[in-house]
């Protein structure tokens, strides 16, 4: 009997000692170095905090936009397909289906600068220089009719730009405007007289087909099998297809993730932001049916460019250097191994 209370007391003391006092530091982590903070602390606030020095004009912005942004956002920032429209939509916010763009909706210019700087271009984020970002933002303002074509945006005049919807926002007011949703006595009986169907999802018929069949996982093995099956149809010499290294193809599939946002391969492939790449190795450049190529790619086609492994390697290493004004807004593959692998992967999709 006598042991028991003592044990509890001892445990209580031990517990108290093991739990640190409030806000006591653990001494974990290390101080962040100024260079490290500078590298990551890139966000820009509405009052301009975080903006680097620099400037860019509408004209330069138009050129950079055409190269880096237009493939998704359109030459005039009008948007391509489902990709965001950046211009237009003025005075539509109280209409049905308002068009929300930088011009019609975004309340702070800092948001555009910050987003372009840290998150764009899609697939090559954080590759733009501050002056380029200023120029792109100037062009977006111009495409929204908010500045004239002589305009130069800089850190000096940044706060002078007036955003049309700057006053269009209120802080969440649900607690007051929706106060009637807080009710102690929800209706339980005779809550309404009749119930009629007013809308049916089946009429719209936009629900994805759901057969329960899962497409087989795309393993390296499966890809290789596919390549073998397509061997006879492949335009490449047979020995070269047979020489495809399964591991290299599998590595290439991983690298291809960087390309997938714009390009499709395989049986069901369609032209998206970029053309279908089935059979592209050894194929004439700029010749995929139904794809709208840049002028640069069209003239390369006319000049008889063929995507041999050598040409494709050079293109993939630095697309914009290889072909100025290509629509492909991709910075390039830095590693030779990645280029080799992705070409092997593309070869596995025969012709």
């Amino acid at each position, binding site marked *: 009997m006598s042991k028991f209370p003592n044990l509890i007391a001892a445990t209580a003391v031990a517990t108290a000692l093991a739990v640190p006092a409030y806000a006591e530091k653990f001494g974990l982590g290390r101080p962040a170095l100024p260079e490290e903070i500078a590298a990551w602390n890139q966000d820009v606030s509405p009052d301009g905090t975080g903006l680097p020095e620099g400037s860019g004009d509408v004209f330069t912005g138009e050129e950079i936009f055409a190269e880096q942004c237009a493939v998704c956002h359109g030459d005039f920032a009008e948007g391509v397909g489902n990709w965001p429209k950046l211009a237009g939509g003025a005075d539509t916010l109280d209409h049905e289906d308002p068009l929300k763009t930088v011009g019609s909706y975004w309340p702070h210019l800092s948001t555009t600068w910050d987003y372009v700087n840290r998150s764009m271009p899609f697939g090559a984020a954080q590759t733009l220089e501050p002056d380029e970002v200023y120029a792109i933002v100037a062009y977006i303002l111009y495409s929204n009719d908010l500045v004239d074509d002589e305009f130069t945006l800089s850190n000096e005049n940044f706060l002078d730009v007036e955003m049309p919807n700057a006053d269009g926002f209120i*802080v969440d007011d649900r607690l007051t405007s929706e106060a009637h949703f807080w*009710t102690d006595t929800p209706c339980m009986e005779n809550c309404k007289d009749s119930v009629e169907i*007013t809308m049916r999802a089946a009429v719209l018929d936009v629900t994805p087909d759901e057969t329960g069949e899962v497409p087989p996982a795309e393993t390296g093995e499966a890809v290789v099998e596919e390549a073998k099956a397509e061997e006879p149809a492949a335009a490449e010499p047979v020995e070269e297809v047979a020489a495809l290294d399964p591991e290299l193809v599998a590595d290439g599939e991983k690298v291809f993730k960087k390309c997938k946002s714009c390009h499709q391969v395989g049986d069901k492939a369609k032209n998206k932001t970029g053309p279908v790449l089935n059979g592209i190795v050894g194929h004439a450049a700029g010749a995929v049916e139904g794809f709208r190529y840049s002028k640069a790619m069209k003239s390369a086609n006319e000049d008889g460019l063929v995507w041999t492994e050598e040409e494709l390697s050079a293109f993939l290493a630095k697309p914009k250097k290889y072909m100025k004004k290509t629509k492909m807004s991709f910075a390039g593959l830095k590693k030779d191994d990645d280029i080799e692998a992705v070409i092997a992967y593309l070869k596995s999709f025969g012709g």
Partner: protein
Amino acid sequence: AGPDPLITEVQEWASGLGDGVDATPYGLPISYESDVIRRNVEWLTADTISSINFTPIHALDGTITPQGCAFERHHSGAIELKKEDYRLMINGLVDTPLVFSYADLERFPRENRVYFCECAANSGMEWAGAQLNGAQFTHGMIHNMEYSGVSLRTLLEEAGLDAAGDLKDKWVYVEGADASSNGRSIPMDKALDDVLVAFKANGEALRKEHGYPVRLVVPGWEGNMWVKWLRRIEVTNGPVESREETSKYTDTLADGTSRKWTWEMDAKSVVTSPSPQSPITHGKGPLVITGLAWSGRGHITGVDVSIDGGKTWNEARLAAPGTDKALTRFYLDIDWDGQEMFLQSRARDSSGYVQPTKTQLRDVRGLNSIYHNNSIQTWWVKANGEAENVEVS
């Protein structure tokens, strides 16, 4: 009917042998369950890299969502970030800006909490009318997991908040390591309340698609704030007003004004079965009606179910008492007469909020909202047991 051969005849599985251990060192569901998967609605977005898919809630029970079928939402694709390469920086208005490695995070006192994570756009396609035919598609941008991690408060205090002065008007800006640089501003009182820096979910490491190795957990608040691949926490004087808190995740009202900072997820519920993807196949008689309820403002106190489109309501049975900002499973066991039903559920939470009808929501918010549709859902269950997504008067 004669005797059942499945009983009277010796079946292959009752005679031969099954798999040995190690046949699947990390197990996946049996092939017969291959339809219980996340699904995407292709026409919603330009590309799967910046898109969302949906949890198969129609086929799950209980409250914990398995990681493998918990919805994904990425802005620049799911990246692969090794623990060894992981760094978390705390900077801004702190006494000492710090960098933590993954191993550092594991040495802070740990918490375990179950919370739901719902995308603010869940049910967003249904504002204008019934559109997608299935609970997975109408309500599947939600999952509910048990998180293990360190409280954000602990990490902020490690860096020291004296430099921030009065904390009342301060914010933290949280940012991910992927190319989208998704970042959101969170007021300091929430940051010091229940926010977690999590590295495990349902007992195991986070999945790549959910932010491996470290994500933020912001209980009860919209999923976009639960920054994945969390790399930086900055204490600031004000909100950054990033893209994700201005141009997106704001709610435009009928008069063209937009609400911002609509962080809390309102109380909501849905019947997961029967539903369009989970029809009644057994005819009349005993029927289990079940679904999920949740609230970002507290815990679920009750759920009412109607089988006649909201004329009369019956209180459902909660599988367990509601817990703070987590999913609650409800059941209504009925004797189905084989007649058509208009199935609805209505959640109530500990703040006294009652889930509104779509008409009630539209009266306040108009038709141009994208986010925060928490209205009552109606399934029209026909006499043959099939169900369809409808709106009723």
